[in-house]
């Protein structure tokens, strides 16, 4: 049994990973050479829009997909070796549960495959699924299925927990409960890697975020830094006669576009920008301020047009 705790110096290491898939329109380069080093005990978010290569990276990390080039090491072993030791628990992006068992029975079944599992009751408690524990798996809602799948990932008491877009299909309440459970597990000194396309999830639940776009790593650092980089907002307003250069000079504005009668200001600090805009152009109308969203933030960061 591998028991990695925060004191261990062992790491997870992805080096020079690439993966392409054949498609009718030519090869799709899903992952284009990424390096990630993770210390034991870290909670790391793989953050990126859909199609960034997060799931492909996770499949390679778990040994479900062989990389075209590069290497994966998990606690000094191959992914298959670490899995054989029962060191990895994972909740994959797609998937449901096998039918005709209660959640409790399913957890007991899965626990029996591991050398040092958690007790079934402890897992049920940890995942907060007491209410559905005795229900048959085919009678669970989408969100409940996700919570039960999370429990399946925890049952082996893994040193490394990997979650691929875990909150898909969960309602707001389940999301809260889910992240509480995950942080509870992280507090036991576990290493956790999760993929998400929500900046807020990464910000609230990870120590560190690795930003991916188009199969490459765009940025890698503490979540606070990453948030500052991609937490861009856009101000859109009707202002027919202003000069773009003058707008771009306003405090907090990083770039400006004109769309017909409207202007679009991309802002690093939208609070400062809106004050400056109103002061300089009192007749500005139809103001909208929106979060840029990851997709746009990535375009800004990478300068790649899709």
């Amino acid at each position, binding site marked *: 049994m591998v028991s990695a705790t925060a004191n261990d110096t062992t790491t997870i290491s992805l080096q020079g990973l690439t993966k392409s898939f054949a498609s009718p329109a030519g090869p799709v380069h899903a992952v284009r050479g990424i390096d990630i080093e993770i210390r034991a005990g870290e909670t790391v978010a793989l953050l990126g829009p859909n199609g960034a290569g997060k799931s492909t990276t996770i499949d390679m990390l*778990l040994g479900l*997909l062989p990389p075209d080039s590069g290497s994966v090491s998990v606690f000094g072993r191959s992914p298959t070796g670490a*899995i054989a030791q029962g060191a990895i628990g*994972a909740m994959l992006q797609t*998937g*449901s549960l*096998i*039918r005709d068992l209660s959640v409790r*029975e399913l957890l007991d079944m899965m626990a029996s495959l591991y*050398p040092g599992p958690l007790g079934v009751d402890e897992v049920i408690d940890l995942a907060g699924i007491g209410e559905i524990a005795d229900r048959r798996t085919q009678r669970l809602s989408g969100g409940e299925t996700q919570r039960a799948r999370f429990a399946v990932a925890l049952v082996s008491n893994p040193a490394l927990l990997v979650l691929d877009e875990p909150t898909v299909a969960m309602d707001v309440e389940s999301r809260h409960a889910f992240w509480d459970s995950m942080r509870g597990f992280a507090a036991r000194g576990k290493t956790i890697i999760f993929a998400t396309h929500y900046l807020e999830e990464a910000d609230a639940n990870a120590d560190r975020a690795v930003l991916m776009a188009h199969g490459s790593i765009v940025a890698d650092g503490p979540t606070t830094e990453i948030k500052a980089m991609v937490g861009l907002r856009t101000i859109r307003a009707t202002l027919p006669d202003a000069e773009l250069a003058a707008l771009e000079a306003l405090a907090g504005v990083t770039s400006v576009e004109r769309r017909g009668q409207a202007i679009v200001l991309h802002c690093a600090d939208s609070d400062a920008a809106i004050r400056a805009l109103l002061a300089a152009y009192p007749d500005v109308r139809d103001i909208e301020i929106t979060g840029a969203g990851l997709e746009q933030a990535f375009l800004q960061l990478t300068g790649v047009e899709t």
Partner: protein
Amino acid sequence: MITFARYEIVRTFRNRRFFIFSVGFPVVLYFTIAGPNRNEHNFANSGLPAALYYMVGLTAFGTMNTVLSTGTRIAGERAAGWNRQLRLTPLSTRDYFRTKVVVAYLMACITIIVLYASGISLGVSLPAGEWARMTGLILVGLVPFIALGVLMGHLLTTDSIGPAMGGTTALLSLLGGVWFPVNSGALHDIAEALPSYWLVQASHVSLGGHGWTAKGWFIMAAWAVVLAFAASWAYRRDTQRV
């Protein structure tokens, strides 16, 4: 491993479709076909009473359906992403297959017991040794079908496996002689090369022979080896998202 297999069995037994198609269906067919011919003692010149002939024929049909349904369950598990989940556990390929085989045999035994009981109710009577030898041959004869089920389960999707299974069992049972003896001609030559033919031939133990000729053993072994290799190949390559 034992706990894992136990829950696999529990799961199977909670599935009503299994009992309807693998047990209920062959029993109903047996009484429908063999019932009116229960006094026929040399059925279609096979030297066997109709009640015995169809008991083994429908046991072959039922057990074939039963063990091939392993494939239907595998396809369902793949669609649920479950086989990818299992790959993330220390469960070895060998233990995975072992569990599938144990569950398939257990289910097949239920089919066999129910069909034998139905046969006895229509007057089938054999010495204990012949019951045992016949059962042994049927159990051995199921090996290629279990491998075929696993193979199809890993190659096909939940949408395609139903028709594929239906077609396969219909053809194999027809040519294997489940519905009427395939005694001569080109059809017989083809039939002899199929595992279902020898499964049905298990009833020939009551003719005093061994049931299977050397050729029969060779053909069964060949099917078993080829399909088992194909099945483990299909399992190993099947790691992608479905």
